[in-house]
């Protein structure tokens, strides 16, 4: 049967509309992961619930971490609701995707504060995202808990005063991480000539690297400092310079994708010196290397050891819920929700101001996945005396070198 022109036109219009819908759905799926863009209610819709927000990267270039944090939060919410909720109320978790974009984060947080009436918000591990939320948190006055390693996200660097609604939870900040790594290298290796290679467009890597350079100049020598940008793919020029600098190791607190490209290109360039990384060298970094055995030696730090016995119940529950292994960021999300639970219980209400006061002053001695005795420092809005688990990768094999907390 032949199609008339009109029918053909309609058919084409239909195909075009369908294509556009698929494209938009693609974007939407990229933007909000599951059906969480419009809000996921983890509890029964009784109306008597505490609203908690999650603004994380579900589809951008840090979505591996963002999805892990969000899934950790969701798992904790499900457990808490199953155990009767907090203060007799169920938790309603509403998630917005920030695509690792500052404006999207501000939009998500504003919507949570104004429309969803959230009591508190758990957000990203990206320092740049948390930095962009400082101003809006002062206006909306809803406590924001994140894992920004840049201390400027929770404290004004000029006045040394904390931003009242910003909290770093569940991990040390970047200068503390740099200090832990520098002191560990000093105590456990003979390596003294450092090359520092960092992403200058990432607030975390910049803060971490600058702190490391400052600390390391008292311990050894920084022979070369090289930088890259987040969208760069080719690092061979910098790696060749490092190779010719006489450096004994590379300090590189970069993102997993950058670390993978760096290690692979270093192998191709014949550069074989130890790498000192940060938390992004944890899973899935090793599994992404095309030849893990080519990585002769690397040290990095994590907030916890995923094979630890204490982590196993969480590990199994996460696997059952999401069909994949959790990563360290999943632990961060999970713990952050339990810190928030403790704060709401101490506050005795879901009022954001009361929760903020409790987060500031009353979080101490918590038993979390990262520590048996977790406390928040009211002066810095950051964890108090939290060490890290030091890890070693030798010829592609990962091992636990134990918990490390320097004296100073």
């Amino acid at each position: 049967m032949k199609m008339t022109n009109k029918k053909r036109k309609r058919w084409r219009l239909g195909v075009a509309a369908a294509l556009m819908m698929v494209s938009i759905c693609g974007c939407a799926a990229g933007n909000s992961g599951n059906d969480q863009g419009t809000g996921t209610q983890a509890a029964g819709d009784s109306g008597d619930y505490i609203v908690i927000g999650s603004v994380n990267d579900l589809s951008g270039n840090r979505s591996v971490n963002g999805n892990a944090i969000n899934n950790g939060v969701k798992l904790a919410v499900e457990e808490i609701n199953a155990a009767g909720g907090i203060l007799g109320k169920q938790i309603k978790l509403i998630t917005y995707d920030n695509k690792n974009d500052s404006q999207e984060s501000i939009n998500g947080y504003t919507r949570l504060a104004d429309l969803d009436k959230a009591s508190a918000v758990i957000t990203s591990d990206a320092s740049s995202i948390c930095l962009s939320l400082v101003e809006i948190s002062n206006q909306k006055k809803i406590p924001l808990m994140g894992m920004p390693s840049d201390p400027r996200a929770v404290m004004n660097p000029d006045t040394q005063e904390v931003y009242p609604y910003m909290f770093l939870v569940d991990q040390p900040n970047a200068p503390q991480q740099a200090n832990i790594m520098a002191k560990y290298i000093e105590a456990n290796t003979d390596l003294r000539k450092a090359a520092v290679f960092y992403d200058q467009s990432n607030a975390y890597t910049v803060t971490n690297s600058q702190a490391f350079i400052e600390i390391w100049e008292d311990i050894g020598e920084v022979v070369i400092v090289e930088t890259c940008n987040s969208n760069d793919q080719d690092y061979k020029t910098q790696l060749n310079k490092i190779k010719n600098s006489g450096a004994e190791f590379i300090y590189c607190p970069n993102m997993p994708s950058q670390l993978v490209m760096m290690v692979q290109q270093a192998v191709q360039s014949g550069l074989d010196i130890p790498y000192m990384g940060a938390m992004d060298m944890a899973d899935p970094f090793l599994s992404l290397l095309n030849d893990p055995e080519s990585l002769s030696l690397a040290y990095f730090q994590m907030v916890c050891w995923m094979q630890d016995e204490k982590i196993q119940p969480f590990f199994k529950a996460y696997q059952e819920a999401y069909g994949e292994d959790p990563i360290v960021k999943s632990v961060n999300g999970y713990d952050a929700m339990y810190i928030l639970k403790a704060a709401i219980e101490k506050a005795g209400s879901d009022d954001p101001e009361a929760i903020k006061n409790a987060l500031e002053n009353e979080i101490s001695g918590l038993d979390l996945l990262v520590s048996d005795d977790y406390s928040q420092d009211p002066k810095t809005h950051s964890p108090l005396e939290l060490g890290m688990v030091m890890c070693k990768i030798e010829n592609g094999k990962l091992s636990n070198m134990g918990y490390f907390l320097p004296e100073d």
Partner: protein
Amino acid sequence: MARLLETWISQERMERFMYYFQMLLNGLSLGAIYAIIALGFTLIYSILKFSNFSHGGIMVVCAYFAYVIQRRYNLNFGMMMLITAAFGAVLACIVQYIGFENLRAKRSNIMLFFVSSSTLGILLQNIIVITFSSTYYAYPAFFTPPFIDVNGFTFSVSDMIMLGISAVVILGLMFLLYRTRLGIAIRALSMDGDTVKLMGINVSVVVALTFMVSGALAAVAGIFCGVNYILYPQLNQLVFKGMIASILGGLGNISGALYGGIMLGVLEVCFNNAFGAGLVPVFSFVFSMIFLLVRPQGIAGKYVLDKV
């Protein structure tokens, strides 16, 4: 003493020469990737006179396709590249039919081609996000040993293989364009579509075949990116480097795209070496501006005024 000094100086000179030679090879390898992207990009520009941003989407889909077939069938590098190139050709043909065939038949405004190509690029990228999530993937290590050592200076085997493949691909493309009937048809179409139609050439078939060649080039570029870098959905952003290379070379000029790509790659490595990675985009931009002020038609192009 003087002889000793002379030996030392010559050694130092030798070392410096080897260092810069290494850098040059890096630049050529990077430039080869840009050139392959620019060639696919400029091939479409030459016949349809619009910037085809769906090229980046095709590149990403092909890079992931290569990853999947390699994992499933444990293919070697050559076989993976051949199958993916064929897949890229078919995919580009489908993209052409969905996105541009109707616009071309109606002689639509060039802006609609641009919108359609951008939308298709986003669609392809999002198909990858939905299918593979936005996590990273890596190809296995194809080349062992990964480098060759010459007097303490190392040269990446993958870089050299990619340079070789790029040379073969570019020579093949030149042969196709200048020594075959299809090539003559493509070049004629790039000059005057209406006259080509009057000469009895089936324009739709030539356009489809040109897209297929462009798709195969996108597949090769996608695999190069996967081997040297890592797979992630935003890999299509490299198409902008291809676009800059094709502009530097002369928009719509095939050999210009090749020169532009190589020049951009070598310049980026030089700027990186001299000023650091942070200033590479600044210097590349400033260089491009000055270059286009002096020679607006690019290295090998003709003066063209158009919306990009």
